[in-house]
């Protein structure tokens, strides 16, 4: 496994208040954590707890109200700097953001060609190569609507990888997939992680998924999102489906289950209260 030397993310006391209708809502409260270069961090939390907000701050879409985020010694987000989302921190979105008006290959090549880092031919060559590794040969010239949702997700990850990002930000990428496709995608992502050694931040609300994939699992509280628990997952790699039935997996899962369930319950109850108002 090629260990990456870049992609080290440090979040220092990050908070974000957002103000949709004049009501200040504290979305993320004082989060500090580090994603070591070449490691896989999963963030688990109930819906609306600020997971995506956290990711958006790293990606450069949202400005934190307080705190700073550093990637490889460069500040990428703080209240005082201008945000620059870029190809070093590529996001894969939960609803998928492949451009429907471009074919698979055009989608994959768009990033480097547009930035001018590669010529068209180079990008096509590289795109085809990575698509081949991802088992997506033969659908290069299809439009995204014409391939299955699992394939769309893989294309999207390939599209991110072509840019050689320092860190891959995955925002519940497998949410809309069925259970079977999901397990295939998990294996695919694990293989990819082992092969490339890219730093990955993965957001999910599925604890099993998080433990199965990640080196560390960061459990967030319900809004305002804080660090509730950090689980060090010491399951050996490479992992496969059998990992999920090992004693260690079940033990780790049981340790975190209560914490996650408690937060989910809180979020649920508060949701009811907010509706009752």
């Amino acid at each position, binding site marked *: 496994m090629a260990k990456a030397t870049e992609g080290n993310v440090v979040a220092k006391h990050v908070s974000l208040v957002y103000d949709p209708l004049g009501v200040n809502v504290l979305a993320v409260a004082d989060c500090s954590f580090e994603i070591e270069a070449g490691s896989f961090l999963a963030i688990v939390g109930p819906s609306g707890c600020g997971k995506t907000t956290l990711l958006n701050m790293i*990606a*450069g*879409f949202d400005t934190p109200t307080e705190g700073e985020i550093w990637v490889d010694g460069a500040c990428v987000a703080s209240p005082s700097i201008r945000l620059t*989302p*870029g*190809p070093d*921190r*590529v*996001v894969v*979105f939960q*609803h*998928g*953001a492949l*451009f*429907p*008006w*471009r074919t698979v290959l055009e989608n994959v090549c*768009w*990033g480097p060609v*547009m*930035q001018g880092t590669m010529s068209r031919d180079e990008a096509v060559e590289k795109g085809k190569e990575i698509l081949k590794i991802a088992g997506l040969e033969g659908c290069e010239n299809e*439009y995204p*609507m*014409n391939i299955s949702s699992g394939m769309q997700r893989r294309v999207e990850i390939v*599209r*991110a990888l072509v*840019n050689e990002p320092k860190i891959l*930000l995955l925002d519940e990428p497998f949410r809309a997939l069925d259970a079977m496709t999901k397990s295939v995608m998990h294996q695919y992502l694990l293989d990819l992680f082992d092969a490339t050694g890219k730093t990955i931040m993965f957001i999910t609300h599925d604890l099993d998924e998080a433990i199965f994939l990640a080196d560390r699992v960061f459990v967030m509280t319900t809004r305002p999102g804080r660090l509730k628990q950090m689980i060090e997952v010491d399951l050996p790699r490479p992992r496969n489906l059998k990992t999920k039935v090992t004693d260690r997996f079940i033990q780790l899962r049981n340790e975190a289950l209560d914490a996650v369930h408690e937060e989910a319950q809180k979020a649920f109850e508060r949701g009811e209260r907010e509706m009752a108002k």
Partner: protein
Amino acid sequence: MAQEITIKIKSEQEALEAGKAADDGGQVDWSNKIGAYREYSALEKFLRRSVRGMFNYSNLRKILSLVIIVILWQLVTTYKIPPFTRVPSPNEVWKEAVAFIPSTHCLMCVIFSMGRIYLGFMIACLIGIPLGLMMGWNRNVKNFTFPTFESLRPIPVISWIPLSVIMFPLTEHSIVFLVFLGAFYPIVLNTLLGVESVRADYIQGALSLGSKPRHIFFDIILPGALPSIFTGMTVGMGLAWVMVVAAEMVAGGYGLGYMTWESYILIAYPRIILGMFIIGACGYLSSTVLRYLATKAMPWRSLF
């Protein structure tokens, strides 16, 4: 009963044997096992499909509805039931069509109306699409133009006719201006809506892939708004025809609207209805052209 069963068993056995025989050949020929199945010749297939395609019940009903309308029309005009006392019958309109459609006069009318539509619609697209895109793209442009746009839009375009006649000394110019105005509003509005409906994910995704604003504009906003732009153009085309006919009736000159109005003055009533039909056909033709252009411009849309 018993006989039937034996027959059934026997036929099943036969089928099995036939299957075995086929299995020996390596290829199962299912057609042997299904009694009623028979391979049709290519001609037979073509005839069956096309006859079934043309004369299925659904299509028969569609044809029937048209036939009924024509029969009703013939009846009310023959028996002069008010308000159809002076309306020409289908027969008279048909005779007029045979005489008039091949004439140069008819051709000139179509060319003039089409030319005005083409010119006015083109100007509306050339101004309206960029304006709509800029309004959706830049908040300042929208703030600066949208209030004016929205306060002028409720004024029915037909009520611009007198003003446009004053504004433009040439009839031709005022008609083209009215056509432009009819098509302009829906084109701008739909383009704006199209830009605003582009999913934020696409824009964020593009930013995340390292794009500059111009890439987002040309590679995300423009194709994302394209379906809506074509909707605006289709609606605009309909209004362009409304305007060309209305303007020609008032302002005169050549053209289908003028021809229809002139027929009224000359008491050539069958030609009024013929004129209406020709206008309808031309309108249909132009929206077909637009639909064709839309499928060519958005190949990804045909897969939905």
